[in-house]
């Protein structure tokens, strides 16, 4: 019974959503809309679970004074401070996202620079990694190397100034071989998703129950 009921709910819900895709009229369309709203609400609650998990895991680190516990203190203080300024912004300006609210101050001068800095570091690692990885060790590596150089040159004005070949070839690489490979991957992934969905709807794939 403990397995049969969830399997039946999954089967009926999956079947219903497939039917409603092809018959969006009453009653399927309205019921599908109701399910979608429920989905959005459930997705909202998963955020609460995430916050709960984050607090528990870092609180545990602090109480056990595990390695790097100081970082956990910073994280929890940051979390509480952000929530507090968010509430203040809501009370004071009607929304924490009001441009003058303290939440937006923290967002603009802490979150944005931190995220941007982390991502900007990638440029340095990509430069170093390209230098080491793009070596003409065999013909496949050489093909990759030549393609990469053409695309890089084709995407900057100096490439076009050197020769019209670079932007033209860059566009060709993007719209023919790259596109063919990408489309193949997408078709494969879509078939995989259809197959997995069918397995779940028909109760063959049951790992989500464990």
């Amino acid at each position, binding site marked *: 019974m403990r397995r049969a009921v969830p399997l039946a709910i999954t089967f009926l819900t999956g079947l219903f959503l497939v039917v409603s895709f092809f018959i969006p009229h009453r009653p399927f369309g309205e019921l599908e809309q109701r399910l979608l709203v429920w989905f959005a609400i459930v997705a909202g609650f998963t955020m609460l679970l995430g916050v709960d998990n984050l607090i528990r895991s870092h609180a545990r680190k602090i109480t056990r004074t595990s390695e790097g516990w100081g970082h956990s203190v910073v994280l929890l203080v940051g979390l509480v401070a952000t929530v507090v300024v968010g509430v203040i912004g809501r009370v004071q300006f009607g929304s924490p996202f009001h441009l003058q609210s303290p939440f937006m101050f923290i967002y603009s001068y802490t979150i944005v620079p931190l995220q941007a800095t982390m991502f900007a570091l990638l440029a340095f690692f990509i430069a170093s990694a390209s230098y*080491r990885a793009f070596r003409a060790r065999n013909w496949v590596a050489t093909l990759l190397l030549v393609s990469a150089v053409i695309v890089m040159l084709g995407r900057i004005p100096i490439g076009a100034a050197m020769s019209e070949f670079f932007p033209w070839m860059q566009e060709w690489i993007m719209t023919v071989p790259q596109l063919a490979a990408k489309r193949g991957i997408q078709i494969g992934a879509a078939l995989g998703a259809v197959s997995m969905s069918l397995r779940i709807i028909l109760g063959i794939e049951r790992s989500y129950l464990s």
Partner: protein
Amino acid sequence: MDERPRRSFWEIMNDIDRRIIFVILFVVVAIPLVLKVGGTIPPTAPVEGAHEAVESLEAGDYLMVSIDFDATSAPELMPMLRSVLRQAFAKDVKVIMLGHIAIGLPLGHMALEQVAAEYDAEYGVDYVDLGYRPGYIAVMIAMGREIEDIFRTDYQGTSIREMPITADVHSYADIDLLFGFEHGAVIDYWVRYAQARFDQRMAFGTTAVMAPDAYPYLQSGQIEGLVGGLKGAAEYETLIGQPGLGTRGMPAQEWGHLLVIGFIVLGNLGYFFTRGKQRKPAA
């Protein structure tokens, strides 16, 4: 005395210390940004397609803007977002903003308020920010039937039915164009659920690394245009005749690319000239 053997020039080129690469890259990227050099970038067909899609809108038409990125991609996507908003407000097109990346939506909101102020646009009449709702697939599909089911209020908690801009907006049928700014896979879901199912007209601005993922949709005609990376942003600025951060950032990207190509060439020459030495068994 333990003396390390002297390395030849090509051996050094084959194995340049990464810290040297980091320092040179920093200098090469920083100088053009500080000097603020740069010229206009000629537009390519995918960017022209996106520009024409917005240009086809008439005064009073609705443009839905989706903010699906965060600060990590802001240097590439914010310039194109501002350009699209400027083009829309200049044509008196109504802008409805929403987003599927919660931490990035305030960036979109800041750009919206900044550009709206340039054109004296009024909140709730000319533009609105609906904010964020979790579960993007459900949000996209549900908006095809009734937007109010998902967004009862805007980001401030004002009912969408109380604002003139959204009083009569119910579904994609009322949205003339959707322009998404993407740094991840949300673009796939927009195409699958809003375009394929509800036939929504759409164009996208993406980071350079995401642009290849969008090319299949461009070729199939499911999206009308694609603005890819900083270069795309610079091209869009050329098209609207207002050079901005995209155009200013291109020289830094240009010199960065050239430097990486230079290092790749040096590395390969070093590899080629020292290959024989590497094959020799240790004495």
